[in-house]
Structures are given as structure tokens and as C-alpha cells.
């Protein structure tokens, strides 16, 4: 082999090419369904129904988007999901910090017992029906609280937060704050939280995505269509194929049946867009969050 010292041996360069090829295949496989959906959503209803669209819009049209954005159910769902995402995230982050911070303090008596109590809920769950009974007994059924409270704290998130506090707030800071006569809550507010912005970002993102994407709690606890989050609306239109309300007159003519089909592609894009747009900016925080949890998980 006439290779210089810096170049890798021939077989290693070959295996690198094979690896790159495999990654390219994976890339295409993951991308294909996404491109297919987007291409269809921008195509004309007849082209979509004839199955003429593959990876590029055929007879470019925004009709589906216009129909989706004028559908009252979709708009209500969007509005509700925004409320749930914002309120749910606020509640969840506050409660998570409120329990994770004390548990991160080394002198907090009982921290191991409490942590065990939390982790046990990861191993053994009360189950669907008993949880439903609790929500029912509290009178939360068919209220917005049913979307915000039952899943408010994630144990995994508590572990992430606790690990972050324990590892990145030096004990000297607590001692200094104590000497200055600051109370515990003052320390949390003025010293710990300002130093924990990356953690708060991670928690907020995790809970927001969870709220935005969840449909299970709504399926179980909500009956009132005015409270439905977007995911339930999507399920009704996309999977059960039963557009109601604003879309009720869609089944009138051939064109409208076709439009209803393209609508599904447009809805997929519209509903996933907010999360997919912010995702590239927040992916590294997410990664960090996963890491922190993995260190002592």
C-alpha cells in the first residue's frame, strides 16, 4: 500500500465509505415520509386523490391550508392546545423545581426516602381506571384542570433537575448566602434559579412538547368538544375520518370530498410545524437534558 502516514489504511477508507452510504440510506428513509406528506399538502385535490404526488407538489395549491385554517374545530383545538401547553408548562416546571431543589440539598433530611417514593411510581403505576376515579372524585372531569394536573410532574424530569442542582450549584454559594442572612426561598429565587436557566429551558421544552403532543388524557377525561386539544381534533379528522362542525358541509360535492383528503396532509403539517420549527434551536438543550438524566439516572 502506497499510503502516507497520515492517510488511513485502504480497508478503513472503504469501511468509512460504506458507513457513509448506510447513513445516506437512513437519511433518505427518514426523510421520505415527511417529504411525501408535505408535497401532498401543497398539491391540488384531484392530483392527491389520483395518487399522482410523490415527492414534489403536483399542481401547486394552497386550498388545503385555506380549508384547514378556516375549520372552526381545528382553530379551537389550536387555541386549547396553546392554553394547555402554556399553563401546563408553567405548573409543571414550578412543581418540578419545588421538589427537585430541596431533594438536591445534601442536608435535606429525608431526601433519600422521598426520592424512593417518587421513583417507585415509575416502577409501579396505579393504572388507568384508579387514576380516572381520582380525577372523577376531585371533580376535574371535563375541566381544563384534567389536562394540567394528572400528569403535572414527571419523575424523570425531577431526576434531571435534581442532578442539575446538585452538580452545578457549588455548596460555597449556599454558605455565602447563609452568611448574608438570606432565607432558603430567597436563596432559591435570587441565587439558584438565575444560575439554572439552561435547566429551566430544558424542563419547559420537555413539558411543552409533552403537552402539545399528548392526546391520552384528553381522550380519557374530556367529553366537551370546546375543551379538546388539537391532537384530539386531529384524531377525529385524520384517523376516525369524521370531520364535524365547520367541516360538516365538506361531503357535499366530489371536489369537497377530494378537498377533505388533502386537508389531512395539510393538518399534519400545520399541527407539527410549531414543534418542528423550534426544534432545531432547542435540540441541543434537549440533548443536554437527556445527558444530565443519563449521568445519574
Amino acid at each position: 500500500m502506497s499510503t502516507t502516514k497520515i492517510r488511513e489504511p485502504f480497508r478503513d477508507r472503504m469501511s468509512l465509505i460504506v458507513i457513509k452510504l448506510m447513513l445516506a440510506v437512513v437519511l433518505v428513509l427518514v426523510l421520505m415520509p415527511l417529504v411525501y406528506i408535505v408535497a401532498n399538502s401543497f398539491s391540488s385535490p384531484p392530483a392527491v386523490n389520483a395518487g399522482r404526488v410523490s415527492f414534489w407538489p403536483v399542481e401547486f395549491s394552497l386550498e388545503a391550508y385555506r380549508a384547514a385554517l378556516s375549520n372552526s374545530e381545528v382553530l379551537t383545538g389550536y387555541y386549547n392546545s396553546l392554553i394547555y401547553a402554556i399553563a401546563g408548562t408553567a405548573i409543571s416546571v414550578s412543581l418540578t423545581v419545588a421538589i427537585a431543589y430541596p431533594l438536591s440539598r445534601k442536608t435535606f433530611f429525608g431526601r433519600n426516602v422521598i426520592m424512593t417514593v417518587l421513583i417507585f411510581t415509575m416502577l409501579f403505576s396505579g393504572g388507568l381506571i384508579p387514576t380516572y376515579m381520582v380525577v372523577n372524585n376531585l371533580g376535574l372531569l371535563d375541566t381544563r384542570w384534567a389536562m394540567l394536573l394528572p400528569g403535572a410532574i414527571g419523575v424523570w424530569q425531577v431526576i434531571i433537575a435534581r442532578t442539575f442542582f446538585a452538580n452545578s450549584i457549588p455548596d460555597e454559594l449556599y454558605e455565602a448566602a447563609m452568611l448574608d442572612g438570606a432565607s432558603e426561598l430567597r436563596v432559591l429565587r435570587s441565587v439558584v434559579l438565575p444560575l439554572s436557566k439552561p435547566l429551566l429551558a430544558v424542563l419547559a421544552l420537555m413539558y411543552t412538547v409533552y403537552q402539545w403532543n399528548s392526546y391520552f388524557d384528553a381522550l380519557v377525561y374530556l367529553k366537551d368538544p370546546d375543551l379538546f386539544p388539537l391532537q384530539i381534533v386531529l384524531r377525529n379528522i385524520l384517523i376516525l375520518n369524521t370531520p364535524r362542525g365547520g367541516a360538516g358541509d365538506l361531503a357535499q360535492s366530489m371536489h369537497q370530498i377530494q378537498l377533505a383528503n388533502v386537508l389531512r396532509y395539510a393538518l399534519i403539517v400545520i399541527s407539527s410545524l410549531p414543534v418542528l420549527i423550534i426544534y432545531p434551536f432547542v435540540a441541543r438543550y434537549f440533548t443536554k437534558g437527556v445527558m444530565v438524566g443519563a449521568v445519574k439516572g
Partner: protein
Amino acid sequence: MAITTTHPPVAPASAPAPQMARRKSRWTEAKRAWRLHWQLYLLIIVPLAYFVIFKYIPMAFNVIAFKEYSPVLGPWASEWVGLRNFELLFTNPVFGTLLKNTFILAFYLVLASFPIPILLAIALNEIRNGWFKRTVQMVTYAPYFISTVVVVSMTILLLSPEVGLVTKGLDAIGVPAMNLLGEPDFFRHIYVWSDIWQTMGYSAVIYLAALAGIDPALHEAAKIDGASRLQRIRNVDIPGIMPTAVIMLILGVGNMMAIGFEKAFLLQNNLNLAQSEIIPTYVYKTGLINADFSMATAVGLFNSVVNLCLLLAVNFIAKRVTGNGLWR
């Protein structure tokens, strides 16, 4: 100076505090912690109440699995029936199918979705940082942020027997069009592979971090010894990520019986029910659609217990074999 005197003589974090603490009685320790942290104890009341109300009270409500639940009497006053609900469940011909469907789907999912992120991470780790690596990572990570409802909708559209992309692709290689979602035999493959599509990039992140933590000197030494790229992957990378892999596998098995509901329920239709009906979907239908709370709770309790046993068993085996477990 009152503050300094109430401050306990706790050694700095790095010093071995446990020996010091053990000498004092637990009671003194608790009193001191309360004096020091009383505000924090007040702070955790609300989150602790959350765990009691939404996690532990439901566990207690599982007693109705052993009762004939009456909404009027409530869970405590309802009449005891012993193990009747379980007898009914175990003798129900549906039970065997349910158990089989749940186990096969869960095992298939865990086994198939375990190695793929590892392979992806190893491959990504081999190529230089650049636009290609960034693009592959970005794109494979993205589906994780898409909701289950949307993933299932996409699956349905892609598999549509009339115009779906998969149908067209199969048609191109001469396979006749069929309704894959209506075929019970395809349900598991659809479920598992759409799941892998969605989570592969996300799961790979953890392994990428583990790979980044491997000492580069090991790779250098292997290179000097004349190890090829594949030999280095096999003998340096794979042992290096083994502890992470074991933990991920334990977590996977631990979640096995729990994650099923959302997607299985959405992918279900009357045609594929023979293989798509699993314990969680059955619990939902029995409990909330047919309002048989006691029976649904019995099925759910059975599921939770099996799940817990699996987790403990896998953890035990993993500790024996590799020395790594979730806890000691």
C-alpha cells in the same frame, strides 16, 4: 451571628459525611434539617401532595380489583369478592390472546428498537463533524417531536391501499396493492417500524454521548496495534457503550408493558383486532367504554405487577451478567 450557629457543622460535599452523620441520632439530624430548611419542607408539600393524590391514591384504589365496584358505595365500601375478577379474567378465552399479543408486540419492539440506535450512533461517531453528520442527526432526531396521533395518521396515509407511497413502491416491484393496516399479520411490523422511525435519532443521542466519553487514547493504541476500523468498533466502542446499553435495555423492558396504549389504540381497526388488541387497550375499553371498573382494574393491576416483575428480573440478570444495574 445566630445564622452561623444554626448552621450545622456539616463537612464540605467532598468529605465523607456519612460517618459523621451516623454518630448523631436520626432525630437530632431531622430537627437540625427542619431548623435549617423549614421553608424547603413547606415548599415540597404541594409536589408531594401531587404524588400522593395522583400516584399513590390510585394505587390504593386498586383494591376494587378484589371487589364488586359500586359507584354509589365508593371503592372502600364496595363488596369484597376475593379473586373472582381474576378468575373471570384468567378463564376468559380473550385473555390468552391478549397476553400473547401484548408480549409479542412488547418483545418485538424492545428487541428491534434496541440495536438500531446503537448502530446509528456508532456510524455517526465514525464520520467527521460536518454538514453531512449534522444533517443526518437533525433529520433522524426530528420525528421524535411529532405526536403519536400525527405519526399514526402519516402511517395510515402512507399505507393507504389506493394512493399511499408504500403501495406505489410495492406496485413498482410487482406486489399487488393491499390494505396492510387491515391485515392482522402486519400490525406488529407497522407498529414497531414506525416506532423505530420515530425514536431512532433520539435514542442514538444517548449512545453518542457515551461514545464521546470513550478515552481517545484507547482508539490511538488500537490504531498503533494495527486494528482496523471495524475491529476498533467491536473492541473499543462497543465495550465502551455497554453500560449505557444495559441501562437502556433495562429501561426498555421496564417500560415494555406500559407504553403500549396510545399507538396501539390509534392503529387499531376492526380488521386487525386479532393482533392489535393488547392489555392496555382492553383495559380502556372494559373500564371506560363498558364501565366495568373492577374488571378493568384487575387487568390493569395484573399488567402493572407483570411489568414490575419483568423490570426486577431484567435488572437482576443485568447486574449478574455485566455488573451494571439501575440500582444496587
